[in-house]
């Protein structure tokens, strides 16, 4: 898909974003603190008619400007918000807005990762609590163009072909019952937006205790950066099993011991 096509996609979002003035009457819509042109569309697409509030406890931390548009670091957290069952991270104005989805079954609703950004955009985290309400926070990211439509570095070098899915990881016990897992997987994470390079990305990473109990589950989408590096905080002590796969059905697994 060409850059022009990607630009069209962005434009389509803009147009859709300006549409729902009437749709807004159907759902009670609080005013978007980030004043994004496509917030209404994002809300309908990702949250549907679910109840939602903007909640300052939901934090999206990142540099205000992208230094490397292929690798923008983001850390999402929600100090003071409990009972989070689902976390969705998206960038309104990216050609492919949905970045990741995270179910912290036995984990804090915190996740660190990097993503590819195409242009300046709000980056949001929506966290659904057990009562069914989405809590939404976010921030603007300044960027000047070109993270999503460029091919991955590894694709150009054929680097990943021998090492696809290789997992490097480590656990850092924080306090009893809480440990940080950091992992890096080798994968091109191609968006399908670069000319001649089909979409190819990891789409699921499950983290389990050694008895198979699910601790957290992560779905990653096209914008997650090449060779993803992920940080999560698990309510767990002891080894963690990582089970992942990509959209072509390749399976990757590893066990990490503290």
């Amino acid at each position, binding site marked *: 898909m060409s850059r022009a096509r990607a630009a069209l996609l962005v434009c389509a979002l803009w147009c859709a974003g300006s549409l729902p003035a009437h749709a807004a009457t159907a759902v009670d819509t609080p005013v978007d603190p980030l004043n994004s042109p496509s917030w209404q569309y994002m809300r309908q697409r990702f949250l549907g008619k679910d109840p939602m509030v903007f909640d300052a406890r939901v934090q999206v931390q990142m540099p205000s400007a992208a230094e490397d548009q292929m690798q923008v670091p983001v*850390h999402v957290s929600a100090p003071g918000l409990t009972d989070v069952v689902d976390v969705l991270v998206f960038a309104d104005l990216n050609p492919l807005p949905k970045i990741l989805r995270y179910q912290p079954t036995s984990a804090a609703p915190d996740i660190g990762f990097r993503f590819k950004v195409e242009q300046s955009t709000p980056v949001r985290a929506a966290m659904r609590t057990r009562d069914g309400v989405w809590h939404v926070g976010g921030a603007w990211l300044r960027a000047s163009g070109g993270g999503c439509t460029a091919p991955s570095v590894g694709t150009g070098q054929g680097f990943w072909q021998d090492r696809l899915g290789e997992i490097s990881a480590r656990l850092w016990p924080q306090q009893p019952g809480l440990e940080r897992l*950091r*992992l890096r997987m080798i994968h091109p994470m191609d968006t399908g937006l670069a000319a001649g390079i089909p979409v190819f990305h990891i789409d699921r990473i499950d983290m389990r205790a050694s008895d198979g109990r699910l601790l957290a589950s992560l779905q990653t989408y096209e914008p997650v950066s090449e060779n993803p*590096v992920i940080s999560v905080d698990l309510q767990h002590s002891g080894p963690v099993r990582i089970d992942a796969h990509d959209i072509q059905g390749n399976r990757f697994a590893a066990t*990490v011991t503290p």
Partner: protein
Amino acid sequence: MAVAHAANDYRLGAQAVADGVYVFSGRNEHFTRDNGGNIVNTGFIVGTDAVIVIDTGPSLQYGEQQRKAIAAITRVPVRQVYVTHQHPDHYLGDAAYADASIAALPATISAIQTQGNALADNLYRLVGGWMAGTQSQSPTSTATPGVVEIGGRKLRLIGTAGHTAGDLMVYDEASRTLFAGDLVFHDRAPTTPNADLLQWLNALDQIRQIDFKVLVPGHGAVVRDASAIEQTRDYLQWLSTSLHTAAEQGRDMVEVMNQPLPERFQKLAVHDEEYRRSVSHLYPAIELTTLPRR
């Protein structure tokens, strides 16, 4: 374009720092539309029948205005230009010296050939119209480390690396002036987009051994002692140690960016932005050393 020329005046004034040695001082800022990219120090050395220019600034217009400012001081023609390294604020004025030899280290030349256009585009986005007519061009010859004599001035060319893959320093033996390029910053946080911190620290050790009277840093005020070397060294050492420590503690990149800088670095211009940029540049490789393969 004529209008753009008239509007964009860098107001370059040469400052004499030693006998026949002059510096144009840039501001300790980031690139902005206000400063037109003039955040860099450039300079020149006047010989009997040749002027040697060290770095040509961020744009064609800078190079042209630099050349005019040199002509206002001496009628000796510019014969030789040295480009200290690949960063766009140091060499994009080269086109103003089409009739002179323009030399750089081989690593600098190859970086300019592969990344120069992208760097120039990026600078265009940041400073706008000041860049009119500017194009990245490759230096015309290779600088060979060692002693050369140009226009009766004995110069020592010192080839190092660390700030980038090729960092050239020019030392004028008569005045004991060292043009250190971006290996030395002064009261401004160092930039690291192409840095290798270990190499850089080694290069600073090498600079400590040089018997200079005047040191011209790439950014920040000219000094006559080792203070700017020590300041750069202190910052880079701290940066390296704190990034390795953070990675060893399992910190995520954004958490590392949010760490406050020690008070002694708070006085460095643009420390906040540069520190965060440095985390972007350097942390990915450092954190990998703490993540064993499973």
